[in-house]
């Protein structure tokens, strides 16, 4: 399962992020290799979202360097837009565009950002909607779908841009329990071929796909190891405590 760490897709070094006087990230470094699948977990408020939102600059870090696909993130708006094209993101709250149909949600950025033709965009969208198992809903509006279906559309929407990395920020935490599996199944399917950074507490999923497990607490990476070591023999006490809490139920 462990991929050969050849090409680097995301390189984060000595990242620091403050919200006012509160430090949400302190000295975080992380390297994501091509094809690698990283799962991040940790207690709420530990800075997981902040970390992955820095990768596509939804948050602007205060210190440190982030290089995505060979391009360093700066204030250059055009460069950021270029990086965002190559980084897909799936949010906890889906954030589909409610005024557009499922198909239009998937074609919008293809047409206006990637400048594809309508026909080509439709074709790609249909391909990915098929792969997330909702081709028949394409003319509905997001409001007409269940949470699980909406999240799968959100995954398809991100994949339609054919990104080099996929970021998932707790993609199943807003879902009713019976819908979690359908979303995780889709994620597992794509994780095989896609560099993935996923914040989640779904440890079953993590065991299945992760090449590297990361545990964060209080804005720092406390532990980073392969899943086997991580689950059976964690080094830090905080990781042990966290795992015992999360695996208990």
């Amino acid at each position, binding site marked *: 399962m462990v991929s050969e760490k050849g090409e680097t897709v995301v390189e984060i070094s000595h990242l620091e992020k403050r919200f006012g006087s509160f430090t949400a990230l302190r000295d975080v470094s992380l390297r994501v290799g091509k094809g690698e699948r990283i799962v991040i977990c940790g207690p709420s408020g530990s800075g997981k979202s902040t970390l992955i939102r820095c990768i*596509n600059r939804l948050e602007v870090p205060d210190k440190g360097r982030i290089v995505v696909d060979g391009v360093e993130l700066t204030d250059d708006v055009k460069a950021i*837009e270029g990086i965002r094209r190559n980084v897909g993101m799936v949010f906890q709250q889906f954030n589909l*565009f*409610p005024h557009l149909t499922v198909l239009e949600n998937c074609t919008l950025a293809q047409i206006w950002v990637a400048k594809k033709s309508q026909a080509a965009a439709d074709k790609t969208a249909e391909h990915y909607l098929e792969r997330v198992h909702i081709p028949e809903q394409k003319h509905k*509006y997001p409001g007409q779908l269940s949470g699980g279906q909406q999240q799968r559309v959100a995954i398809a929407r991100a994949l339609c*841009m054919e990104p080099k990395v996929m970021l998932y920020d707790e993609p199943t935490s807003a879902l009713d329990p019976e819908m979690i599996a359908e979303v995780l199944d889709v994620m597992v399917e794509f994780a095989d071929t896609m560099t993935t950074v996923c914040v989640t507490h779904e440890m079953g999923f993590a065991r299945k796909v992760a090449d590297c497990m990361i545990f964060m607490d209080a804005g720092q990476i406390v532990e980073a190891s392969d899943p086997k070591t991580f689950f059976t023999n964690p080094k830090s006490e905080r990781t042990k405590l966290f795992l015992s809490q999360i695996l208990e139920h």
Partner: protein
Amino acid sequence: MFFSFRNGILSVAAAVFLFWIISSLVNWFFLDAVWFGTIEDCRLHQDGACWPFVGVRFSQFLYGFYPSAERWRVNLVLGIFFGAIGLLVYERMPYRSKIVIFMLCVFPLFAWFLLRGGVLWLADVPTGRWGGFMLTLVLASVSIVASLPLGILLALGRRANTLPFVKAFCVVFIEFWRGVPLITVLFATAFMLPLFMPASVNFDQLLRAMVGFILFSSAYMAEVVRGGLEGLDRGQYEASDALGMSYWQSRKRVILPQALKIMIPGILLTIIGLFKDTTLVLIIGLLDFLGMIQAGIADPRWGSPNVPFTGYAFAALVYFCFCYSMSVYARYIEKKYSEGRDRR
């Protein structure tokens, strides 16, 4: 028992009061009114409306002092204007968006050249001769149409945290115009604007009033639009950013379509307010609809106690019809979107 007794009394009292109001209105407007004849008839029957006054003056109320021979131009413009509105209210109208674009981009220029004249073989009609309801409509529609895009830009600017100068400008602009009464704005643009302009620029009174209206109304529109922008879930901004959309792409395709939909009722209410506010141009000497009616009332040949009442009642009726239909439409749209399939 006690409550129903009291409710009963109140209902009866309300019914009696309503009946009294309605019957006296009906009497005054219709039954006791003078429908045909001259001012002599009105002077004889003073306890009802004097409709001949409105009949005789009607074309002035509508056209102001626009030359009679050229009034077909006004008719043509009004015909297209109301025709287009009629078509647009019907939602399944084919080419709806094309009609909107035509009405916003082509029609205003067309209307201006047609009404103003002085091009081709069309005789020149200076704006000083425009008046009446036509002037009201010109003022209201120009300031409405111009204030919406300006308001959107101001609202976006006010939220542009990464551009502090733009933001500061928009905040100052909006708060300044919202803090000043419209009358002051009109006086200022009418009498002070020329002081800042080179003497060679001949800025006519109507244009000055329009500038005042547009500045004023765009500030109000901006606040309405800002409400819509702020009402939108932050996730919508983030999702469009995360897809690599540029600022303007995301505003145009994701943010504004949703924000404006939320704000349609607010925008329509602002438009209604603006429509009524146009009557204030009276004080800078423009004779709009209400101005023409007042001018008619002031005419000593039509001196009779029921003439002013009739004039103002007619003005109220016309303004009410326009504003009420706009507010019915606003409520219809509001209902439609709040029950809409794509609510979230």
